[in-house]
């Protein structure tokens, strides 16, 4: 349960962070760059949390494998490569991170185009990754956020009350 909670909240933060990082207009370039660089660590933690799955599927990839796992693996691989391209091209056109460390790379317009294109493609892969894990997202959301607050229990039916003497008399009179 603890790891489920950790996974869920980490994934939720990663998704939210990714959506914010995709909008540099929202934060300004400096925050965008530093924030994205910091968020890379959370992505690696995400992979670490699913390390056994990655190793297991890597070993079995070319053998008999349930097709959804293989599709997941391919999407995740493309996602990983996509993030690397986004981060590399982002660093090349960096206006804040690398200059802070005294490094200047002659970034060109092509690098900017690569950065834009790769981030759009990565968004698509993130959407696919999300969609392929939809049932897990739905179930975990229900388990962590809906079920902890139990629905209002309907009031128990009133038990038949013992009849008092007056009502017994009434009954006899009937």
């Amino acid at each position: 349960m603890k790891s489920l909670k950790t996974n869920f909240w980490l994934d939720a933060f990663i998704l939210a962070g990714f959506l914010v990082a995709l909008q540099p207009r929202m934060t300004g370039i400096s925050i965008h760059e530093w924030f994205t660089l910091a968020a890379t660590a959370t992505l690696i933690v995400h992979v670490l949390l699913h390390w056994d799955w990655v190793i297991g599927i890597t070993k079995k990839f070319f053998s008999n494998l349930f097709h959804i796992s293989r599709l997941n693996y391919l999407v995740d691989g493309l996602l990983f490569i996509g993030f690397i391209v986004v981060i590399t091209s982002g660093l090349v056109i960096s206006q804040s991170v690398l200059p802070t460390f005294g490094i200047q790379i002659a970034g060109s317009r092509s690098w900017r185009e690569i950065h834009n294109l790769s981030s759009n493609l990565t968004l698509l892969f993130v959407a696919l990754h999300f969609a392929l894990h939809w049932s897990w997202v739905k179930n975990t959301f229900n388990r962590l956020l809906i079920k902890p607050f139990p629905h209002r229990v309907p009031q128990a039916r009133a038990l038949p009350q013992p009849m008092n003497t007056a009502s017994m008399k009434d009954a006899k009179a009937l």
Partner: protein
Amino acid sequence: MLKSIMRFLLILLIAIALGVGFYYLVQPAGQVSFRSGIGNLVNVSRDFGGEHGFREGGFSLTRGLFGITGNLMLIAVVTFIVISTRKIFSGKPATITTR
């Protein structure tokens, strides 16, 4: 714990290696120049002003929120398409009714 740290470093190393490889693949000249001194923190604090244009480091919360909403909609559409496709091809046998 040590195992996790080693794995973390391994993934980071793979990512850096792939990133550097990609950089040299696209830009073989590798025009990197180092300036002396670390700590040009002016760039960090420069971009907090909203009155500047984006290229000058400005930002717009409204535009950003619109963008996030658009991206969320894209994710929702892709999720809907994938779920529908999986349902269509799930291969569940049709319900057979008997008398």
